[in-house]
């Protein structure tokens, strides 16, 4: 089986062996189709279950590749039985994959999460709570229409709260995604495609936002390979 790390534009130099070794010390190899190649390692059986060490080892390989030239990282655990499957995929998806590589060239992904600072004062635990999530069930007799309108209102509160934090960061990025709120108290979970040269400016912006918003706590991590930017809406079925 082949464990796949990333897709990139093939080039003869430098040899993959000079860049990195794969999981379980297996050598890296390139499966090519046209201008693209998938970087893989070969194994008799799955080389890794998702332990922390395996995840970081996989990530190390992707980042070593990214140091050479633009990559589209694979989802962890991408395995195929043989090369034909990969070649077929690269052939079928050549145009969107090449476009994605062009989009991410020279960029890295930065992550920003923002949480409401705990604890929330009791008087804010109303049905229209600060982060917009539902904390009470509707009283008896609520009409279906009012229920939906209340949900919409809460969604807008959460969206506005997230946008207030997301928008200033998105302006510094070539592309940006904001995930829908997941947890109670999670105000923002954003991914930003930032030119390498703009990293210091982005970090300063996060610090500025933090200084302006003592009610929020920020976490910024990176640089990451562009996991969140491998597809665009034009590709047809996306997440």
């Amino acid at each position, binding site marked *: 089986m082949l464990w796949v790390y990333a897709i990139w534009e093939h080039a003869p130099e430098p040899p993959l062996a000079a860049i990195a070794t794969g999981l379980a010390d297996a050598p890296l190899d390139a499966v090519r189709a046209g201008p693209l190649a998938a970087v893989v390692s070969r194994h008799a059986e799955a080389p890794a279950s998702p332990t922390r060490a395996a*995840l970081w080892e996989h990530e190390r390989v992707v980042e070593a590749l990214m140091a050479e030239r633009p990559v*589209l990282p694979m*989802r962890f655990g991408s395995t195929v039985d043989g090369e034909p499957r*990969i070649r077929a995929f690269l052939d079928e998806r050549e145009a969107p994959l090449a476009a994605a590589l062009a989009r991410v060239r020279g960029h890295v992904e930065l*992550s920003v999460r923002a949480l409401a600072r705990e604890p929330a004062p009791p008087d804010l635990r109303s049905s229209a709570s600060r982060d917009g999530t539902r904390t009470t069930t509707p009283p008896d007799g609520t009409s279906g229409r009012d229920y939906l309108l209340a949900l919409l209102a809460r969604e807008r509160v959460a969206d506005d709260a997230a946008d207030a934090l997301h928008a200033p960061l998105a302006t510094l990025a070539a592309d940006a995604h904001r995930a829908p709120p997941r947890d109670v108290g999670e105000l923002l979970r954003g991914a930003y495609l930032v030119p390498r040269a703009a990293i210091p400016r982005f970090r300063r912006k996060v610090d500025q936002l933090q200084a302006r918003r003592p009610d929020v706590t920020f*976490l910024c991590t990176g640089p990451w390979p562009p*996991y969140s930017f491998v597809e665009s809406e034009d590709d*047809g079925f996306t*997440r």
Partner: protein
Amino acid sequence: MGASRNQAADNLVSRDDVALVDLLDRLLAGGVVIGGDITLSLADVDLVYVGLRALVTSVETAEAQGLSLPTSNGRRR
């Protein structure tokens, strides 16, 4: 060098941990997918294979892609 661990007795979460959370968010839900599958197994026996590519989507998105969908009363759109 390495993790700047907070030495407070009750803080057992390190920078490594939060970096892992952000890495996992990307590794497990981002990145390129060839196929995209889930294998359900019981007691280590593979039982059910689920092809994810078009498993769940909104009706609007599916119609926009020209998919012919059955309605809930059995007719097709």
